[in-house]
C-alpha cells in the first residue's frame, strides 16, 4: 500500500517547516529523501517507525535529537489516541492546528504562558477566597499556591508537559517523550562526555599553524614520478602553534564550579603546546600565583607576567565575575588585600597587552543581569564574555580567532 502523495506532502511539509523554524538544520534534500523513503514503503505504517525513519533521515547531529523529540511530541500531540492504521489518514486541518501553535516560537511561548497563567490565576482566586474565610497564613498560601503551578504549566522545561499523560488507549510514554537525548543538547553544561566535544572545538584553534617542513615520503614519491629528478614536497607543519594564557578564578563563589573548571583545565592542557596558567581571586590585581596550595607565599607579579608574554598569546579568563563592584572599580576594593590600584586598571592592562581576550563564565548567561559585577567585567573584556557551555566555548574560540 502506498500513500497518496498530496496527503503526504501536506502533512509532512508542515512538520518539516516547523523543524526548520525551530532552528533544527534540515534541508530540502533530506525532506525529499524522507518522501522517497515513505513512498518506497521501507517502513510499516506505524507512528513509531515514522518517528525513527524521519529522525534518521532529517537529523544528523545528536545535539538536535532532543529538540527533534520535543517538536515531534508537540506536533503529533494526541497521536497516542490514534491507532497506527489511522495515523496516515489524519485530517490536514488537525495537523495545521498543531503546527500553527508552533510556527512562531514567540506565539508558542505566549500560548503556553497564557494556558499556564489562566490556571494559576484560577488557583489564586480559589486560594484568596479560602483565605478570606480562614484569615490566617495568607502570605504563605498565595506563595505556595501561586508559584507551584508554574512548575507544571509554566516556564520550567521539566514542568511543561510537552508530551502526553498516559492515555486510556495506549499504555505508556512514547519514545520521543522520554527525551533520552536531552544531555546531548548543545547548551547543557559541560560534563565528562560533553567536554570531549568542547575539546574538539579547542582543537580547531590549534590548527592554525602554517609552518612548512619537508615531507620525505611525498618527496620520494614525486621524485619517482619525475623519473628520478629530485622534486621536493612540502607540507604544513602539524605543530601546535597556538599560545594560550589561562587565568582561573579560584576560591569563594567559584567553589561551586571547581569540577567544571578542572575539567576544562585538563582538557585545555592537552590542546595547546604553549599554555601557561595563573590563578587569581575574583579579579586580577598586582599578583597572581601558579600553585594554588602555596598561593600565599609564591606570588608572581602581574607586571612580570605582562612583560613575559607577547601579543601572540591568546588570553582565556575563567571566572564567575561575581563580586562586589568595589572589587573591580575601587582602590583597596579587594577582599583579600589592600590593592594600590583598582582591579579594572589591571584588567585594562591585560586587554591592552593582548589582542585576544575572552572571559568564560560558569554562571548561566541568563543570570548575568542579576549580578552587577558581571556586566562591568563584560564591558572591560569588550563584550567577549561567554558562558562555560559547549556553545559558549565555541563562541569564545571564534572570538579568539578573530
Amino acid at each position: 500500500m502506498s500513500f497518496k502523495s498530496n496527503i503526504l506532502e501536506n502533512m509532512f511539509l508542515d512538520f518539516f517547516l516547523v523543524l526548520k523554524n525551530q532552528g533544527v538544520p534540515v534541508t530540502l534534500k533530506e525532506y525529499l529523501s524522507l518522501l522517497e523513503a515513505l513512498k518506497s514503503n521501507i517502513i510499516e505504517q506505524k507512528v513509531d517507525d515514522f518517528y525513527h525513519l524521519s529522525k534518521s533521515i532529517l537529523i544528523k547531529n545528536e545535539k538536535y535529537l532532543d529538540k527533534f523529540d520535543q517538536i515531534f511530541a508537540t506536533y503529533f500531540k494526541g497521536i497516542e489516541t490514534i491507532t497506527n492504521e489511522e495515523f496516515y489518514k489524519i485530517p490536514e486541518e488537525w495537523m495545521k492546528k498543531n503546527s500553527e501553535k508552533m510556527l512562531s516560537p514567540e506565539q508558542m511561548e505566549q500560548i503556553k504562558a497564557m494556558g499556564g497563567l489562566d490556571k494559576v490565576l484560577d488557583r489564586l482566586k480559589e486560594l484568596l477566597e479560602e483565605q478570606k474565610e480562614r484569615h490566617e497564613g495568607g502570605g504563605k498560601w498565595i506563595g505556595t499556591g501561586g508559584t507551584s503551578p508554574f512548575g507544571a504549566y509554566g516556564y520550567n522545561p521539566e514542568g511543561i508537559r510537552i508530551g502526553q499523560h498516559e492515555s486510556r488507549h495506549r499504555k505508556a510514554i512514547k519514545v520521543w517523550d522520554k527525551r533520552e537525548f536531552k544531555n546531548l543538547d548543545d547548551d547543557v553544561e559541560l560534563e565528562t562526555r560533553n567536554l570531549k566535544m568542547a575539546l574538539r572545538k579547542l582543537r580547531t584553534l590549534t590548527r592554525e599553524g602554517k609552518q612548512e617542513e619537508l615531507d620525505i615520503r611525498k618527496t620520494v614519491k614525486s621524485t619517482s614520478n619525475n623519473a628520478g629528478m629530485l622534486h621536493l614536497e612540502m607540507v604544513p607543519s602539524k605543530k601546535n602553534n597556538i599560545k594560550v594564557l589561562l587565568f582561573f578564578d579560584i576560591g569563594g563563589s567559584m567553589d561551586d564550579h571547581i569540577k567544571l573548571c578542572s575539567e576544562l583545565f585538563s582538557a585545555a592542557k592537552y590542546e595547546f603546546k604553549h599554555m601557561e596558567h595563573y590563578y587569581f581571586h575574583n579579579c586580577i590585581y598586582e599578583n597572581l600565583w601558579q600553585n594554588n596550595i602555596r598561593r600565599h607565599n609564591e606570588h608572581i607579579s602581574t607586571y612580570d607576567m605582562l612583560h613575559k608574554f607577547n601579543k601572540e598569546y591568546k588570553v582565556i579568563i575563567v571566572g564567575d565575575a561575581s563580586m562586589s563592584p568595589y572589587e573591580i572599580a575601587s582602590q583597596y576594593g579587594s577582599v583579600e588585600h589592600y590593592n594600590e590600584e583598582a582591579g579594572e586598571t589591571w584588567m585594562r592592562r591585560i586587554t591592552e597587552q593582548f589582542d585576544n581576550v575572552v572571559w568564560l563564565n560558569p554562571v548561566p548567561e541568563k543570570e548575568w543581569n542579576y549580578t552587577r559585577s558581571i556586566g562591568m567585567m563584560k564591558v572591560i573584556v569588550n563584550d567577549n564574555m561567554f558562558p562555560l557551555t559547549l556553545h559558549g566555548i565555541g563562541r569564545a574560540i571564534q572570538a579568539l580567532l578573530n
Partner: protein
Amino acid sequence: MGFQSTKTYIASDGLKVAVNASIALQKPLIVKGEPGTGKTLLAEEIAESLGKKLISWNVKSTTTAQQGLYEYDAVSRLRDSQLGDEKVNDIANYIVRGKLWEAFDSEEQVILLIDEVDKADIEFPNDLLQELDKMEFYCYELKKTIQAKIRPIIIITSNNEKELPDAFLRRCLFHYISFPERETLKAIIDVHYEGLEETLINSAMRLFYDLRSIRGIKKRPSTSEIIDWIKLLTIGKITAKELDGWQPGNGDFPYSGALLKNEQDLVTLRI
C-alpha cells in the same frame, strides 16, 4: 525482510529502521554513540544477517581518502624500471586498489564499513563526497572511471572526535546508538551468555547501572564492558551475594578494572 536482530546482536527498532532505510535509499548510514555500544559490530551483523560480504576500511589519523580509492606505487615502478622488468610498461601493475574500489568492483552487493571516520583529517569526509554520492571515481593513471557495479551498503562509524562536514552529513542517514535500557541490556547479555544464573545477572546489572549513574565518572562503562565483566565474574566464580553489598562509595568490587578504565574513576568510587 531487511535487517533484523541476530542471534548475537540486539538491534533497537530505531536502528533497524535506519539500517533498512539506508539500504533502500542507497545512502550511507552514519552511526554514532558512546564507545562500546556496538557501532563497529553493527556492520558485521548486517553482513551476517543479510548474508553479504563485509569489507572494512579502518580509518586512522594518517588515512587519506585517496587510499580508499587507489594508490599508485611509483617507487616500485621506478625500481622495476631500473631492473628492466617487463611489468614496468603497464602502469596498471602499479595501481594498488583501495577498499572503496574493491567494494565497487565486487560482483555482488557487499557491506562497506568505514570505521571511525572522525579519526582522519578534517578534510577526509569532504574528499569522499562525490565517491559516496555517485559511487564512482576517476582513476587518472588509467584514465578511466571506476563505477560501482552494485552499490554497496555503506556503514560509517564515528566517535565524535571531529565534527563531520554538513555536505557529507546531508548525503547520509544518521543514527545515534544510545545506551541500552535495562530490558535491552538484559537481552544483549542473554544472547552472549546462555543459561547464566539469573540472580547473578540481576546483581551485576544493578551494580553496573549504579556505577553508570555516579556523577563524575570520567569514562562510563558501556555494553562491551559489561559483557567482558560478566565473563570475568563467571570465570572467577563470583556469586550474586558478593556483588549485592556494593554501593557507590564502597570502592573496589570484583574485577572493577574491567568496568572502569580510568584510575581516577577508581578513586572516585571510594569517595
